[in-house]
């Protein structure tokens, strides 16, 4: 999950710290615009082999580093559950 933090910090030229905590709304803080949002989603999809529906992108689940990490973890967990072979 550190990769997400690193990607956001490097791509958007910021540093998460006391003035910009990981739970900050990245839209309201001027970090994400629509251009950056697409970049972020494409990175997450490619890096973790997951995908986001339009509904997910337009709801409030990908707005802070904390929420993004949780959402990616949830999708990975879902994926691993669905891919676990049935034990005979």
């Amino acid at each position: 999950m550190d990769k997400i933090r690193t990607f956001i910090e490097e791509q958007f030229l910021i540093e998460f710290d006391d003035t910009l905590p990981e739970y900050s709304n990245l839209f309201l803080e001027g970090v994400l615009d629509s251009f950056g949002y697409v970049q972020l989603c494409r990175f997450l999809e490619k890096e973790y082999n997951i995908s986001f529906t339009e509904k997910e992108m337009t709801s409030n689940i990908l707005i802070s580093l904390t929420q993004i990490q949780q959402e990616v973890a949830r999708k990975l967990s879902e994926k691993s559950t669905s891919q676990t072979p049935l034990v005979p």
Partner: protein
Amino acid sequence: MCGIAGLINPEFSVEEFPKLITGLLSAIAHRGPDGAGYVMADNFVMGSVRLAILDPEAGIQPISDDSERYWLCYNGEIYNYLELRSELETLGRTFKTKCDTEVVLQAWLQWGEGCLNRFNGAFGFALYDRKTKQLILARDRFGKRPLFYVQQGKAIYFASEMKAFLAIPGFAFEQDPSQLRSILGQWTPLPDQTGFKGISSLPMGEWLSFQDGQAERHIYSRLSFKSDIPIQNEADALDKIRSTLSDSVALRLRSDVEVGVYLSGGIDSAIVAHLAKSHAEQSIATFSVTFEDAQFDESAEQKLVAQRIGSRHLARHIRHSDIAQACPDAVYHAEIPAFRSAFVPMYLLSKLTSEEGVKVILSGEGADEAFLGYDLFKETLLRQEWDMLPDDVRRERLKRFYPHLSHYGDQDTAALTGLYQQFSTEHMPGLFSHELRFQNGRFSSRLINVDGEQNPFASLSGLISKNSDFDKMSSVQKAQWLEYKTLLSGYLLSTQGERMSLAHGVENRCPFLDPAVVNIAAATNLKFDDGFREKRLLREAFRGDLPAAVVDKRKFPYRAPDTEAFVAERPDYLELLLSDTELEKLPFLNKKFARLLINKMFTTSPDRISTKENQTFMFLLNIALLNYQFVTRKGLGSGTSLGTLPPLQRVVDLRTCSAS
């Protein structure tokens, strides 16, 4: 058009006055190359440089009343001066010249500050009363002409451009981190901000009195979008828009020299050019910038309009190298950090205009603010009803706003929808309309470290809280108010408009900034449509007069290549950013962020650089150049290159304690 400058400082010897005032006026000589003049007495000195437009022989400044009690230095044009002069004559006032300068003086003597609301024009002036020892500074209602001042103890300095203060002994420029942070946040300075400590801009619609070392500011004009013009139906609205704009252009053609028009390729300047042609007794000249980079170029529409009105059309072609080469000169004239490079081509265009012998141009500024031309107004309308709209309507509206979305994938539409989702409710009181824009500004403001107030929008919030009418406005009217007070006055009219034109002695006039035009727009906006086709009524009002390709063209923001031009050309002065030693000279800079940004600009392809990064880089470059020129006084800001005094036409010496 002219430039004015002057000072009251009890600590300066009167013997120094001639040298002092010629220094100040030399620094702004470009504003008035036709002549200079000044008046000095025991306690004040002020003067002007003049670009002779009306009554070139008799309009030499400064002027006084017969008793020599009142002295006026004046920069600008009062377009309704003939009407005011008639009114003043019926009240018993007599005139010696045909010039509007004398009308300003007599109007003040007749009506006092009440004259200011009667003026339809663009002006900044200084008036000194020798009996009461009171200095008056005043500025037009939209901020078309500049006026800066510095109050230090019992002293006051004033000038049309801040660079005049470089000629004041002991005066030091220092960039103000708190103001810079605010400027970067809201994209432009607020009406009183300059980016420098201790220097204020007199806000539009205000006048200042200075007496006994005390300065007081007064507001004479408040921006309002209330209109009492009755509009019967859409046909009536179109008639009134046509006739009001026609009158406005006719007033602005009052000149004793040739008048030209700046053609952008859009509807606004095309309307101005069409009306200018219909009123002009002879052929008119039109001027445009064209770009090597096709994404910025509008030459096809410019040619269409020029052909339709039969103008003598001239274009300045802009390449990356032109922008890189002219940028430091343009920044020196602008004096305020800018968020994009589009003012630089306008600097080169005014040079061409001047070389062609045209001293006065009309342009389309102010149309988008009055007639709701920007996407920002549509975004505001959409965002305020966002939460109540079904998904498919949201998508359909977004695609109408951003036609390019249909060329991209669903993910882009979803990203934009996600962005709107975050901005469908107000987070900053009163600033709902601008929160999307200010999101980019918040990113840029990270460049500046400040002590104390960290919120870059605190000053703006303070400004709106002082305006009791603001709360009563609709969301779109608030958006208009903010546009008039920030982007229009703080960048479009100043940095990109007036400062670039006057850098080469060209005066710009804006028919869309006539109070009657703003009033008719307020009376008709959103009355006959939903606002989602920008400036629809304006387009329809002139559909029969202009090529359909221009009337039906979508709003195409005037832009120029930003970072890519500098990265491609790599001019020597980029060392101001690339050298750590140079960056250290900006003590308030967030150097880590600045280095990351600079590195990204030079190592990333332009299509992967976002608008806000581009804009932040432009701010950084501007701040570094202004520091170099004004704070360290190198290059154009060095003492040896402040300018040459135009021919001295009038010196009035009223000193009684002079040693000479």
